[in-house]
């Protein structure tokens, strides 16, 4: 009987997410209650995340080696599931406020999640491509979800056009790799000739496609616009989910295709530097908090790329020298995901109906109006800045460590410089919140009451950020298992 039960279990999280996506859609005409769908989607997301445990308990390749259920995919499924859960919680009040259809929204979120899950578990390029498209197409729609908003539809259009453009590159890369190796299955490429120029070209094209997804400069160009235009909870999803999934695919390619790492070092080196600077310098002058966080996302992608440079550098180290770099990427994605979702959630709530209050001025005196929100946002910003007692600190620390480990001193130093530049604009937000007085009417206005779900999101992210900032151990040890990625 094909497919086997094991195959299904190994793909269970994605299937659950898709299933619940369908369920939501199916029930949409029949149930009027908006919150029902929130609950349903939440259940779906949680079940899917739970299914990751089942999948994790059944390690091995599935569907003739198209996907792989290993520790690596388990980690990313959990991460993606967590992101989705948080986004669903955070989006609820936003959808109410903006009077947007809930069922469709959640269905799309769940489908996107499934797509990311596929990316994280795929071991075959075409499957990965389908996963990528699943999450991308959902993302295009989600970005334009506020369809009567000029900005939202523009974001959607730009994302769609450029995303498809990049997807074409990605696909062309797959074709070339296929031409060079005769297969699209990563596991069968281990004997690929690293000198093949077709392979080089194909891998480059794939990198372009993934680089676009993770917003590596100069492919970062879409990010600020799309992040700004998309509905804020969707932005939160974008910044945490697809990025993690795309990085996951990249990591898996490195782990399984030795030939892939040969040529990529300098590409990552340069991309990392460009990305860090593009993000941080671009953010310097931003006065729109949402856009500022978008640029910050770019910068952080740059930091992660530093770890990738370390990965590619150390990949030839037979003693598993690249393991800390993998760990750095993964831990960073976790810490960064938590923070970004929390931060965008606050931006979403402060933004109010129609996302009016996005300017830095709207945050003036926030500490006095809404001390808890300000404190939470400060925690996120400090984590992004990389100060101790936050997860971001360890994230950055591990990346530094990975870089230094690979003797990439210049990269580490450049990253250090970027951290300092970054510190400037993160601090600026904190400064505005704590040290500047708000306008009279803003101070007089009653404080925005955060709904319960939002508070839960904030609590989870803040506690998570600080917890991982104090005890990164478990996560790290988990990542550093020797059988992290099946080969």
């Amino acid at each position, binding site marked *: 009987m094909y497919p086997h039960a094991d195959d299904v279990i190994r793909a269970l999280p994605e299937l659950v997410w898709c299933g619940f996506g369908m369920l939501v859609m199916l029930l949409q005409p029949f149930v009027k209650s908006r919150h029902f769908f929130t609950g349903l989607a939440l259940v779906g997301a949680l079940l899917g995340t739970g299914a990751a445990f089942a999948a994790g308990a059944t390690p091995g390749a599935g569907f003739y080696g198209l996907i792989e259920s290993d520790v690596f995919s388990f980690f990313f499924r959990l991460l993606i599931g967590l992101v989705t859960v948080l986004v669903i919680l955070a989006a609820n009040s936003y959808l109410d406020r903006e009077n947007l259809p809930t069922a469709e929204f959640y269905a799309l979120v769940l489908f996107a999640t499934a797509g990311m899950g596929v990316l994280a578990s795929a071991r075959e390029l075409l499957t990965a491509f389908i996963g990528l498209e699943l999450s991308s197409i959902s993302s295009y729609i989600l970005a334009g979800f506020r369809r009567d908003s000029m900005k939202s539809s523009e974001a959607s259009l730009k994302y769609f056009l450029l995303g498809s453009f990049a997807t074409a590159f990605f696909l062309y890369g797959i074709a070339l790799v296929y031409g060079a190796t005769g297969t699209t299955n990563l596991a069968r490429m281990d004997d690929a000739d690293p000198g093949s120029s077709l392979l080089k070209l194909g891998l480059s094209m794939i990198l372009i496609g993934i680089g676009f997804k993770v917003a590596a400069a100069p492919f970062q160009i879409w990010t600020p616009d799309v992040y700004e235009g998309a509905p804020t909870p969707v932005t939160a999803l974008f910044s945490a989910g697809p990025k993690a999934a795309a990085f996951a695919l990249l990591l898996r390619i490195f782990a399984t295709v030795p030939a892939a790492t040969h040529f990529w070092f300098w590409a990552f080196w340069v991309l990392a530097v460009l990305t860090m600077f593009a993000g941080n310098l671009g953010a310097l002058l931003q006065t729109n908090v949402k856009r500022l966080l978008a640029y910050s996302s770019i910068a952080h992608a740059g930091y992660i790329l530093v770890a990738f440079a370390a990965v590619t550098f150390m990949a030839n180290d037979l003693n598993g020298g690249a393991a800390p770099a993998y760990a750095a990427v993964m831990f960073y994605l976790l810490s960064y995901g938590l923070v970004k979702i929390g931060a965008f959630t606050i931006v979403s709530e402060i933004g109010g109906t129609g996302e009016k209050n996005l300017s830095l001025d709207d945050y003036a005196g926030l500490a006095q109006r809404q001390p808890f929100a300000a404190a939470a946002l400060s925690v996120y910003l400090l984590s992004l800045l990389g100060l101790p007692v936050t997860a971001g600190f360890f994230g950055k620390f591990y990346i530094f460590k990975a870089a230094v480990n690979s003797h990439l001193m210049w990269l580490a130093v450049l990253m250090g410089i970027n951290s300092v530049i970054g510190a400037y604009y993160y601090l600026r937000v904190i400064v505005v919140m*704590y040290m500047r007085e708000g306008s009279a009417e803003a101070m007089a206005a009653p404080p925005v009451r955060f709904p319960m779900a939002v508070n839960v999101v904030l609590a989870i992210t803040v506690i998570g950020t600080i917890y991982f900032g104090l005890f990164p151990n478990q996560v790290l040890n988990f990542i550093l298992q020797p059988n992290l990625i099946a080969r």
Partner: protein
Amino acid sequence: MSSLFHGGHLLSILIFFPAVGALALLLLRGDDHVFIRRIALIVSTAEFLFSLLMLRGIPLNSGDYRLVEYAQWITTPPIHYHLGVDGISLFLVILTTILTPISVLASWNSIHHRVKEFFVMLLMLEVGVVGVFLSLDLFLFFLFWEVMLIPMAFLIGIWGHERRIYAAVKFVLYTMAGSILMLVGIIWLYNATGTFDLPTIQQMIQTGALVLQPRAEMLLFLAFFVAFAVKVPLFPLHTWLPDAHVEAPTAGSVMLAGVLLKMGTYGMIRFCLPLFPEASRRAAPWVATLAIIGIIYGALVALVQPNLKKLVAYSSVSHLGFIVLGIFAFRNISMQGAVYQMLAHGISTGALFLLVGMLYDRRHTFEISEYGGLATPMPKFAAFFLFAALSSLGLPMLNGFVGEYLILLGTYQSHWQWASWAALGVILSACYLLWSYQRVFLGEVTHEKNKSLADASRREKFILATMSVIILWMGLGSTYFTRRTEASAEAVIDQVEPQRPYEAAAPPVGSPMVKAAGNDTSVVHDTSVVHVTKQIPAAASGR
């Protein structure tokens, strides 16, 4: 209770007790200011008393780390919660814990808005600073080093004066720029050694288990050194300091000058010298040059400041230059002097900032030209000010003298040129302090507003008297301190430049002066002499 303090957790308590206090404050209602102040005072005073308990744990002439706490914190990479105190950190911690209640008292009436947050920040700052001084794990050290930034930035940024935000941001960016490099250095060191544990690395370097290439060692040294130099601040990295000081509230300035700057010099002593002895030696002439420039430069700029607080701030640049010089002269005497001067500067400059803050409370300006003739309306205050100024300019029998003297004396032993240039600072410090004292306190009262200024209040008198007593005590009873710091300081020097019994190092008397100076360094490097090397206790001693 007592077993708690005996049982080896004293240092943890010292670090986290203020945090608990801060947390308690957070839970309080924010509008009862008196109550909040009292709680803050009680917490910080209790912390001070706790810190005194350390004295029992430190025997004289012991260079070991004592009261060690050691626990695994993070397994990959192996990061330990490793605390310990030795002679050098002992008094720095006590300095911190005594300046905190004094800062609380000093802020009693001058902080009116967001009182609760203010004291929370002050206590959190204490957590960071005490942590820095007590950490024996490089990572832990870095963690506290960074943690301390935020409360300080808030103190400046929220409760500061007109350009507070600029100053706060500048402060953080400068420090971060330095410390990021240090992080890279720490990691590099970890890569080379496989551990973050300071005593272990020290031992590896001492035993030759770890040999760094000269270039690598120099880069590592610089990575650490720059971070510390920013903090100190060493010329030309000092420009954040005047801004930060001028804009900070009194308590912030006191803590900043009193202990935060010492973190830089402490770091040099604790890390730069023992970990990178060869690089330290090679860098010493450059560092010393910068230190000397700082001494003279800081003093000259202080001389012409129209702003009283900025003047004191620049005087810190000058004074800290002495400390750095003392450290990098690699003589036991100068090192002792540097350690001592760290404490002395904390007290005397702290006192000056307190005084300036009190003036500000009355007139809301730091401009010297706004004052003049204050000795008439406020004689006691003037007396306190003079006393603090005298201590700062190094009058013998007050605290400033001992450190400065030892630094110069020690430095002179190996580098008479350095000491000679640096000693110019002694002249200049008299110039700027006495001149500013004259312009503020002497002469006729020129401004109408100043005629009716109140003399020091009881609270202020209490604060100032406390500081004065410490100043005097430190000036007279310096041996109480130096006997406890001696072994640790010598242990540091032994790793850089082991020193023989004094007499042998003396140049032949009657030899030409210049030649004698030239000889001296070669004498020091004379390898035929058996070094009396002190063993640095392994980390294991505490485990």
